């Protein structure tokens, strides 16, 4: 051992781990940290490996969507909704379109309804694939990411064939959809589903039941039912805590009637079991932990595949057209409407206040990721520094939607 002149080595000898003197340290995580899924900054007050406090700072992606909504007509606002949750643009389009349709008292034709279900459920699969893939990446496993993005790419190709865009679709619009499906698209979509279903099992092997993955997520960041409801958490975060609540079944009648003749199960853990087919819950997992939040999404993918298959059948049989988009400058009746829809990240609510002109008086976007993220300080209190990316990833936030 090298002895430094003038220093007694005994001063630095450590007899046990607990005698190490630690002090609090502020660590700035983000806004460019890869595991924050965008531009989120979290200030961590740490003591050694323990996180004493986590303070999220948001707003880096604030683009004044609500202010813009006061300057444009509802149909012109559709592209701005794409840019909120940019991983699920179709779902955002639908939420806004339905809100305006509720104000107008407009119901779209049957064919448009089935096409909408088809498209949004396909987008839900794509969004959950990103969630699962990047979650693996956060926890240090690259392989599932590649598998997930390979499948997502196929969905994006299908969307590109439908509307020409791969990310910001503006496809679902007020009064219907922008275009009908190109010929042969449904066969391509079915071929994709046939090929995709076995991949879900691969993803379960790579992540859900993978020993390392379970060790990193089970029992980490446990969110109780009460806390989840108190913080307004919705979507997979709420269901991961065991609350049986899905707007597609329990929401506003104006929204649930879109799914009225569809058969699906809500992805929630009942008596320790998830809707089949799905692998058994590992014994280490606690209801409300990161593993459950992740797993709810995987189960939802299976249900979405079911819904897409039903929608394809119903769309084929439906008669009529896909609806007529309203005029760009159509006058809105005076009134206020607030409507929430079940988006992949949670319940996305849009509010429109109209005074009887073509341009709304006020537009409000209640973001699901915003509420889901607000619970982060509670989840991170007392966890290990290495668990912070696991917790942030399990919430599956999109900063475009948090900041709007």
């Amino acid at each position, binding site marked *: 051992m090298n002895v430094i002149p003038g220093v007694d080595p005994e001063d630095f000898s450590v007899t046990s781990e607990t005698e190490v003197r630690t002090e609090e340290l502020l660590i700035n995580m983000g806004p460019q940290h890869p595991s924050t899924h965008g531009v989120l900054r979290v200030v961590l007050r740490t003591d050694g490996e323990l996180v004493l406090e986590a303070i999220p700072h948001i707003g880096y992606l604030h683009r004044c969507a609500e202010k813009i909504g006061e300057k444009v007509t509802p149909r012109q606002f559709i592209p701005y909704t794409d840019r909120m949750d940019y991983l699920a643009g179709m779902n955002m389009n639908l939420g806004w379109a339905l809100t305006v349709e509720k104000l107008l008292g407009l119901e779209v034709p049957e064919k448009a309804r089935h096409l909408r279900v088809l498209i949004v459920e396909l987008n839900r699969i794509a969004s959950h694939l990103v969630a699962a893939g990047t979650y693996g990446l956060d926890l240090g496993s690259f392989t599932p990411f590649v598998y997930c993005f390979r499948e997502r790419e196929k969905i994006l190709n299908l969307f590109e064939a439908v509307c020409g865009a791969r990310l910001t679709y503006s496809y679902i619009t007020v009064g219907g959809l922008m275009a009908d499906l190109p010929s042969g698209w449904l066969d391509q979509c079915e071929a994709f589903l046939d090929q995709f279903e076995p991949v879900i099992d691969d993803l379960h092997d790579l992540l859900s039941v993978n020993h390392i993955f379970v060790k990193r997520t089970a029992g980490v960041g446990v969110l109780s039912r009460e806390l989840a409801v108190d913080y307004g958490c919705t979507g997979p975060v709420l269901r991961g805590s065991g609350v049986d609540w899905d707007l597609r079944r329990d929401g506003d009648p104006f929204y649930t009637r879109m799914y009225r003749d569809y058969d699906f199960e809500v992805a929630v853990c009942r008596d320790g079991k998830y809707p089949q087919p799905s692998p058994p819950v590992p014994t280490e997992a606690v209801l409300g932990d990161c593993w459950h939040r992740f797993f709810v999404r995987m189960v939802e993918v299976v249900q979405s595949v079911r819904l897409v298959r039903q929608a394809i059948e119903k769309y084929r049989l439906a008669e009529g057209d896909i609806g007529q988009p309203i005029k760009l400058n159509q006058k809105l009746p005076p009134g206020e409407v607030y409507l929430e829809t079940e988006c992949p990240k949670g319940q996305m609510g849009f509010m429109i206040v109209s005074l009887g002109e073509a341009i709304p008086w006020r537009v*409000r976007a209640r973001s699901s990721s915003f509420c889901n993220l607000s619970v982060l300080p509670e989840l991170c209190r007392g966890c290990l520094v290495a668990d912070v990316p696991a917790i942030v990833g399990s919430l599956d936030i999109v900063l475009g939607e948090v900041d709007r």
Partner: protein
Amino acid sequence: MSIEEIFQHLQEKFGEAVRPGDFTSIDPWIEVGPEAIADVCRFLRDNPALRFEMLHCITAVDYLEVDEKKAAKASFVPHLELIYHLSSLTLRHRVTLKVMLPRWRDDHPGQLPRVPTVSNVWKTALWHEREVYDLSGVEFVGHPDLRRILCPEDWVGHPLRKDYQMPIEYHGIRAR
């Protein structure tokens, strides 16, 4: 439970502080006096017949017509509205509450109107109230950490106010 029954419950408990809003509109609403909102919310959450466990959203709407010609014909007097959307997951009903506020406290421009916080009733209000404070300029009395959330800390003004003027520049960045 219907909006009339919810209103009945509230009126028995709070009397004059709650007023029927509009029960025939698409989203029927109840008007609550600004000073009573925290107590009303706590009652709505804790009453076993109501059990509104979830606060979905707090929205502020600024009613002010800046165009002088249109202002003469406007259908409202200038004011600020806070809209609370609540729902019960167990009993599966919803309600909308509205609080009417002056645009400025005591009509002094720059003095933000005050309303009691509901962040001690639902934790989700912690961020929603910060957002309303940031963008619409309402001061929530009793909020433990009322800071700007979406705009930078040194931003001036509240952008969702109808008379808001965009700054000409911000730290050397041209804004207009």
